[in-house]
């Protein structure tokens, strides 16, 4: 009797703990809406999303987030151009090609990459990558979209690699056997059967990697250059939504228009990353069903 009560208590306690994160999430959502929506009293939806100027401290202010939105998408696209081939190739190498010993070396190394704090990436970007980019391309400044993309790409690689590797190594052995039995060699089997069979999982990996790049703040704040203009090339400084919030939040008056505008940006970010996560989930489910 006493034991049953004790167990019950423990069960409830754990239930409470797990509810905690849901409560937190709800709190965040409520605050984002409550503090973000008021901006649309002073600026229209169209002006907010498609306005070309972000001058929050001018009189009158301009709250157009198009340059910031495009800045985020721009560096994210650049990051994916770097991270997708490298990340997927590493995953293929780790799960299909590498000798177990080499695998035991590369896998932890890539996972370690995920553990490096983003401020360290930013620092490394400022003192190493930016000067190299500047010199190599003969640019006036090294802090630009390209430098940010390179760093974000490296940061997204662990996500893409580890999830892709899971997907590739869970492709049923029977598919590979069928391929070998038809006279295919290891390379043909990997490229034409194993990787396509893992396409669902690999897309999930890419989407999550994209989420990682879009949400990254510190690194882009340090290396992207910070110019709130619509990006036209990878060699110009850009500013992302995340960097804007981080840089400006400390200087706004609580409850001001600028304050609400920053919350509205946060809301946009939240919705973006949420949709990416849902998209990744849907793909994972579809993938599971396909392989029975």
């Amino acid at each position: 009797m006493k034991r049953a009560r004790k167990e019950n208590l423990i069960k409830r306690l754990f239930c409470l703990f797990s509810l905690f994160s849901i409560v937190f999430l709800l709190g965040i959502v409520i605050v984002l809406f409550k503090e973000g929506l008021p901006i649309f009293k002073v600026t229209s939806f169209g002006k907010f999303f498609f306005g070309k100027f972000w001058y929050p401290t001018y009189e009158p202010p301009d709250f157009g987030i198009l340059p910031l939105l495009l800045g985020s998408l721009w560096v994210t696209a650049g990051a994916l151009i770097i991270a997708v081939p490298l990340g997927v190739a590493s995953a293929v190498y780790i799960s299909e090609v590498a000798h177990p010993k080499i695998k035991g070396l590369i896998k932890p190394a890539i996972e370690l990459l995920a553990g490096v704090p983003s401020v360290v990436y930013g620092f490394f970007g400022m003192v190493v990558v930016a000067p190299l980019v500047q010199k190599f391309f003969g640019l006036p400044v090294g802090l630009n979209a390209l430098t940010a993309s390179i760093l974000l790409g490296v940061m997204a690689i662990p996500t893409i690699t580890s999830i892709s590797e899971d997907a590739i190594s869970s492709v049923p052995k029977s598919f590979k056997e069928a391929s070998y039995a038809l006279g295919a060699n290891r390379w043909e089997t990997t490229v034409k059967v194993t990787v396509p069979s893992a396409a669902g999982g690999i897309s999930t990996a890419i989407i999550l990697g994209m989420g990682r790049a879009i949400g990254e703040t510190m690194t882009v704040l340090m290396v992207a250059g910070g110019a709130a203009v619509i990006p036209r090339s990878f060699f110009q400084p850009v500013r992302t939504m995340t960097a804007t919030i981080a840089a400006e939040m400390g200087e706004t008056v609580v409850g001001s228009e600028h304050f609400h505008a920053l919350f509205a940006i946060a809301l946009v970010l939240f919705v973006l990353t949420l949709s990416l996560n849902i998209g990744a989930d849907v793909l994972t489910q579809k993938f599971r069903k396909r392989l029975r």
Partner: protein
Amino acid sequence: MVKLVHSPYPSGHRQSIVHNETNIRISIRDLNIWYASARAVKDVSLDIEKNKVTAIIGPSGCGKSTLIRAVNRMNDIIPGVKVKGEILLDGKNIYDEDIDVVTIRKMVGMVFQRSNPFPKSIFENVAYGLKINGFPGKKKLAERIEQSLKDAALWDEVKDRLGDSALDLSGGQQQRLCIARALAVEPEVVLFDEPCSALDPVATARIEELIQELKEKYTIVIVTHNMQQAARISDFCTFLMLGELIEFDKTDKIFTTPSKKVTEDYITGRFG
């Protein structure tokens, strides 16, 4: 390595009583196969005749799969497998060093226990083997795919939906698709490893019927745990136990007057 004379028909070979010797397609000679250190196939010798169905029966774990997979060198992809002995395909040892595995696997096709179509369209499944072997021309490819699907008795059921995913087919259809996929590369020998073990009786009957038709064109080896199936569809029958060949003979003889007591016990269901 036991070196034998490189003739497929040595005098005094014990299968010579069973076979019409000029029709032998595959000769397995003193074959031994090890996984790590455990020997799964022990000193097996048998001859497989052209355009006939040869069945391999025996209790589960006796080495049937290991033996049949040796014939297209599928055991090569399992790490730690060691093979000793010879398998002569048209008189040439497929384990010789100068032999290209790809050539062997094209000549000896295989259908597995669990149907394993690729998660691709029906068309792409059958086209796969042809494409990796550099089959030229779209039109010819389509013709060959149609022919293979017809040979596998699947064409009428899928001809209007070749672009659909192979995974939408029923279990029996999937297995026939796997047969079509194997036939597409025009093998000479087709190996079946318990092809019906996951199928219902109706689907099983269709596959059995199909195998009867296929032997006109191909040499067939089939592993089965189903004694009635072996009796119904095979011309020759091998009984394996604990990796050893106990008896090999014409199927009629095995099922009516087996020469060993264990064989009789097994086929009458006294164990296994």
